[in-house]
């Protein structure tokens, strides 16, 4: 018996603990607000489901590569008359090709482009990307889109943005609590990032400094003709001041790729277009030993040192990079151009007032529902009904506690689920009480009738609830944001109501009847006759 009370007490305490636990950084022992996370539909914000058109990414890639391979081959001394991209068929046709003495275009392509299938046909040489390369290009397109959004999201001033890629798909889910500026979000999603190359000033930097340290030599002011940019290439709050003049932009870059330096260390490879190469050649000539910063959307993603005068349109950025860092940087630089079309499949913009009103309405509806059910139970089952009402209140506390402990969000349909639970939770008690009444009618003593009532009704309660649980589980798998909240609420409600209506209310009965003064319990309706006493 004592054991039962301890379990009930522990359940209540655990729920209250989770509900009133102070959040990180909050003062005091008890939190002022309930620890329940609201879904976007209640707190307001933007939800977007995006689809990156990965087929489009391949098409763009094929078009890019037609030019890029031609340039590279010609730099190596081969002649490619025509490079014709066929984006729909995923292939490039090279016509009118010729090679230096003793070499062959076919062999050179085979050697240099191991990710491509090279075929000699009647029309010319046809190259098409291997499936591995296709997958890489598609993955890159998705990652670039994610990166671009992440990088620019602070334009919106959103405190806790969430950008997740749906598992194994080309979908991106964007959740911005507290935002409602759909116009800006569209811009962020649909427009390329702004990529610039600017010289560092003072020209050569030895160590990364914070903004204050950086400006200290200049009396805390930004020197004329320069601007301070935050540096995100290393951790910490460092910054560089850069010259205002923009040297190159994304439009000058033909290709960015994984590469290696002479020692086989990972490096970022870049191919510039003609005009980019001319500018770059003259800038590197005058700035050997200086640093050149790559700025994406107003943030420095890399500031390598210029080692030599670069005349080749193809060059590499070296540093102590790991494979992973190179991969990241390629994605970042590429996000300065649009790798693929992005489609907005679904967008929901919810203002903060809608949720506020819904919470108020839901609260009132829950309160009213609770009162109506409680009054009915008290009239219909009297003392037994009173126990079921206590169990119901307990149930609601436990549901809130479980919701908080699981960290799942409360959504608008979730509120409906909560209110619905108020009506359905007493079902288990009703089953038990009706059973007890029946047992009493057969002439059993009160104690034994209560015992039999709980025991026999138990199986029925389980069977009936498991079926509802299965339905709720299917709803959860269906996976639509706010509706998931309803499913979770229903499932929590089922588990909790079995506990409170069976275990807790039985404890109340046992405690009451355990006292030898109480020989009977009122379970019959207040009005009308009482068949048995």
């Amino acid at each position, binding site marked *: 018996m004592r054991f039962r009370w301890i379990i009930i007490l522990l359940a209540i305490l655990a729920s209250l603990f989770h509900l009133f636990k102070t959040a990180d950084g909050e003062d005091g022992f008890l939190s002022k607000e309930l620890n329940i996370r609201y879904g976007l539909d209640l707190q307001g914000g933007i939800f977007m*489901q995006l689809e990156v058109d990965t087929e489009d990414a391949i098409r763009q890639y094929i078009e890019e590569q037609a030019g890029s391979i031609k340039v590279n081959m010609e730099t190596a001394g081969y002649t490619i008359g025509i490079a014709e991209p066929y984006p729909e068929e995923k292939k490039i046709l090279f016509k009118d090709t010729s090679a230096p003495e003793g070499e062959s275009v076919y062999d050179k392509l085979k050697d240099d482009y191991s990710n491509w299938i090279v075929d000699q046909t009647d029309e010319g040489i046809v190259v098409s990307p291997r499936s591995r390369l296709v997958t890489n290009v598609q993955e890159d397109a998705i990652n670039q889109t994610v990166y671009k959004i992440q990088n620019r999201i602070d334009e919106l*001033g959103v405190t806790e943005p969430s950008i997740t890629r749906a598992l194994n798909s080309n979908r991106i889910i964007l959740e911005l609590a507290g935002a409602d500026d759909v116009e800006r979000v569209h811009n962020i999603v649909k427009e390329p990032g702004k990529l610039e190359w600017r010289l560092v000033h003072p020209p050569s930097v030895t160590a990364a400094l914070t903004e204050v340290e950086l400006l200290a030599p200049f009396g805390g002011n930004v020197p004329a003709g320069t601007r301070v940019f935050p540096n995100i290439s290393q951790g910490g709050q460092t910054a560089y001041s850069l010259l205002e003049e923009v040297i190159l932009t994304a439009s000058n870059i033909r290709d960015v790729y994984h590469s290696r330096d002479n020692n086989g260390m990972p490096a970022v490879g870049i191919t510039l277009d003609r005009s980019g190469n001319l500018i770059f050649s003259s800038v590197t000539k005058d700035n050997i030993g200086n640093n050149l910063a790559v700025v994406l959307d107003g943030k420095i993603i890399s500031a390598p040192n210029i080692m030599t005068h670069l005349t080749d349109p193809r060059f590499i950025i070296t540093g102590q990079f790991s494979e992973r860092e190179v991969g990241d940087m390629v994605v970042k630089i590429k996000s300065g151009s649009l790798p693929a079309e992005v489609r907005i499949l679904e967008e929901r*913009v919810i203002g903060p007032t809608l949720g506020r009103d819904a919470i108020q309405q839901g609260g009132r*509806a829950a309160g009213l*529902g609770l009162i109506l059910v409680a009054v009915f139970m008290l009239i219909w089952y009297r003392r037994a009904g009173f126990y079921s009402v206590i169990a119901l209140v307990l149930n609601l506390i436990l549901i809130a506690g479980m919701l908080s402990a699981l960290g799942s969000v409360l959504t608008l349909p979730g509120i409906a689920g909560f209110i*619905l639970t108020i009506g359905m939770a007493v079902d288990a008690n009703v089953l038990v009480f009706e059973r007890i009444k029946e047992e009493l009618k057969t002439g059993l003593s009160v104690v034994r009738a209560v015992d039999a009532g709980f025991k026999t009704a138990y199986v029925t309660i389980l069977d009936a609830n498991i079926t509802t649980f299965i339905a*709720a589980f299917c709803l959860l798998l*269906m996976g639509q944001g706010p509706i998931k909240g309803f499913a979770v609420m229903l499932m929590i409600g089922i588990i909790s109501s079995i506990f409170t209506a069976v275990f807790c209310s039985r404890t109340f009965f046992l405690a009451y009847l355990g006292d030898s003064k109480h020989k009977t319990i009122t379970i019959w309706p207040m009005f009308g006759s009482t068949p048995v006493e």
Partner: protein
Amino acid sequence: MRNIDFIGKRGIFGVVSIILVITSIALILTKGVNKNVDFAGGTQLMVKFADPTVDVGAIRGLVSQIDSKASVYDNKKASVFDAAITSGASFTVKIKNPDVEKGKEAEASLDRLHKLEFVFASMNNDEKQLIDLLSDLSAEKIAASLESENPLGLSGLDTEVANAYKTLADTVKANLAGSETIAQLAEKVDVERSTKVEQGLRLAFPSINRVTKDFLNAMLKKFNPLGRARSADYVDIAKQVLSFREEHGDFILKFEDMLPSIVVAEGEDAAQLGVFFHDHFTLGTYNITSNETFSPSIAAEMLNKAWEAILFAIIGILIYISMRFTMGYAVASVVALMHDVIIALGAFSLVQAELSNPVVAAFLTIVGYSLNDTIVVFDRIRENIKNSRKGDLAALMNQSINQTLSRTLVTSLTTFVVVMVIFLGANATLRDFAFPLLIGIIVGTYSSIFVASPVLLFWSNKIRSINNDK
């Protein structure tokens, strides 16, 4: 002991059920079931006006010019609790399945939003406010706001960018006279990039009644009216502005009303804050409370998933019941279940309510609920078969239904009452959800008494006796 002969009258109720099911199917096939925007594709938007006299007819007229499929609903009659909460006027605009080129849904939805915003703004002449604000401001101030917004996406030297926007601002000032709308103004300022200029002006001078806390904070940080340290934020001010707005029915009508109640830190000049608000914001008279858009492809996918969920639920439950009971019980309960879902769907079609995600959730709840009742009865039938020697199944069933009758009625009553409270009290989304539940509860209770057991009896007599099963 109460003993009503339910099983004996199964013929009558069988006919009633069959008529109901056939009528429902006929309704579903002829009238069809309406789909809401999440299953049909399209836009659903809720708007609230400060002015309670805004007329639904006026909006309807203007909105129908944007898209002939658009429908406008007045939210006033939505909830019995609403009267206490909502002041002003609130409307829902739905545009289902608009004609949009595939792949251009995002552009189309933004375009639609702009047009709707223009309609809402025209109700109380918000457009003029922005024109007046631009007339009041100096070209320098307009240039500064535009530059921080950078609508033309200019890059290059800072001075170049600044000069470009100064020139733009000068042109704006020069063309203000005679421009009635921002669109007209933008057209005169820069024909080629008029949409960008128009967007830029609207974004640079937003309505104080539409900004979010985070955005207000970001904007205050950018213009730093109180001269705070570069890294300091303005969350305190943004919070005060928003709570003032909330306390005054979600609309600030005059900056003068709000400013005295804003507390600034010691040594800061509150007057500067007043200048800041006057220079950067308009007092919009409407507020879009929600705006949801679904592309046709995602809508079709959602509808598919919804059917899948219902199908999986039915299969899962069938397996569970055939494991716990026998096949006969499982088939009987699924027949009862389909009966309930079809009739609920029929009722849905009859009143022309709309199928949406919350409604599917409600249907799945009906699935669970309908079984709940049926299983309680079946459990008792099984128990009574076990305990009794004589094998008159019909009598045993009747006894079981009678024994569980008061439980069935009490539970249905309590559940019905709370769902009724949701139906009457909560907002539009939840009402859509509560309506099929109300029908489901009534039909589910009926079917657990009048449908499930007769079907089980039929199965036992004609196909395989359940008396002999374990």
